[in-house]
């Protein structure tokens, strides 16, 4: 067992192919960034909608959030890649197809907007009612209250949790190899087929992701701590 263990921790093979692997990782990062932007935009729309005064709006937005929080990311990814283009094709009467990238960004963005919308909602709700009342008593308009009192505070309160969500989103980008995006895991599989040495490659991939995420998580911890000390969040 021990020499097998040593073999899997012998990362020279991983290092050898670092150019290709890094290129793969870059795909993950691009998809992550695009997906995060999409998720954030949708999350704000839905999150605010969940606090709307009209019951129907609240119902639909809550339905949206619940739907995507309960949908497995992989299933949704496959669905967006295979089914959505067909639906659009039929609706628009032309042939529509998504590239794997587009499908990934859409699927992950929409999927995680469900979680993020909950964070947005919680952030807005966490602004103390008393702050809003004080602003109203001073005669500020609804819009001004929203802009100057609620949004700044809500964003600060949302930050720690939403950063965790973004980390989860990045982890989820590892799935895109399953719809043939040439990301890190895709490259790892290709190299494995070529080199027939899965041990160091898969272990290396696991350690790489692990390292990135732990570094990110530590960074978030530090930032959260500093914000908390400044009385921000």
């Amino acid at each position: 067992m021990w020499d097998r263990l040593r073999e899997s921790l012998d990362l020279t093979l991983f290092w050898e192919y670092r150019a290709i692997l890094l290129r793969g990782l870059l795909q993950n990062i691009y998809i992550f960034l695009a997906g995060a932007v999409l998720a954030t935009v949708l999350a704000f729309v839905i999150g605010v909608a969940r606090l709307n005064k009209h019951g129907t709006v609240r119902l639909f937005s809550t339905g949206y959030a619940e739907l995507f929080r309960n949908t497995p990311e992989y299933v949704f990814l496959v669905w967006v890649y295979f089914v959505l283009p067909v639906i659009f094709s039929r609706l628009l009467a032309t042939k529509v197809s998504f590239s794997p990238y587009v499908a990934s960004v859409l699927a992950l963005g929409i999927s995680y907007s469900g979680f993020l919308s909950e964070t947005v909602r919680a952030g807005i709700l966490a602004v103390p009612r008393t702050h809003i009342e004080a602003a109203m008593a001073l005669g500020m308009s609804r819009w001004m209250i929203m802009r100057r009192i609620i949004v700044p505070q809500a964003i600060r309160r949302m930050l720690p949790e939403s950063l965790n969500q973004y980390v989860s989103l990045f982890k989820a980008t590892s799935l895109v190899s399953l719809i043939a995006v040439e990301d890190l895991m895709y490259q790892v599989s290709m190299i494995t087929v070529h080199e027939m040495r899965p041990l160091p490659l898969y272990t290396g991939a696991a350690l790489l992701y692990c390292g990135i995420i732990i570094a990110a998580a530590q960074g978030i911890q530090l930032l959260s701590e500093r914000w908390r000390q400044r009385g921000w969040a």
Partner: protein
Amino acid sequence: MWDNFNRLVMANLHTLGVGLSVTGYVCFCAFALAVVLGAIACLVRLYVPFVRIVAIGYIEFCRATPIFVQLLWVNYVWPEVFGFPKSVLGAGIIALALQSSGYLAETFRSGIEGLPRGQREAGLAVGMSHIQILRRIVTPQVLLVMAPSIVNQMTVVIKSSTLVSVIAIPDLMYEALKLVNTWFEPIEILTSTALIYVLTIFLISILAKRVSDRFRNKFGLAAHA
């Protein structure tokens, strides 16, 4: 579209049903294993002086590595290095368990550290041993207070289980994809599969929430995130 639906989905309901039962089996075993591993990791981290570094490393690794990566790693690397798992089913269960055990360990830790000190002191004051206190005082309360997080982890396991189809475990997703590859008609099959997952997860989380809320209200235990 409806006769498509009948042809593709209804006719294959049995296959999908078997797939769903495999999913259920995998999730159940994985979650049970995750609870055990998570509890051990948590206790070692909190109470065993030197080995706690290992526990912390384990927990961080399990939480930081994407489930897909863990799955492939356990499936392809472990048999060579450790000699087990001997089947893809074992690999799937172990990988899912690993992932959730990290989160559960942190959940348990949060619960244990959040428990008021006085609860344990009251146990000590009447002469209970640490093990008795852990069993009778700490564990029930931690499980009740952290129930929402634990239920959430259950849904995560079910969602992650869709990936075990990749290593050829014949779960619901595997059967659905097989059908799609056979018939080349993705809409009805995939949409139905997605809905089955959504409904199952939704029902389980509602049910678990209902049950745990009832107990928590009975004991007046405060809600925890």
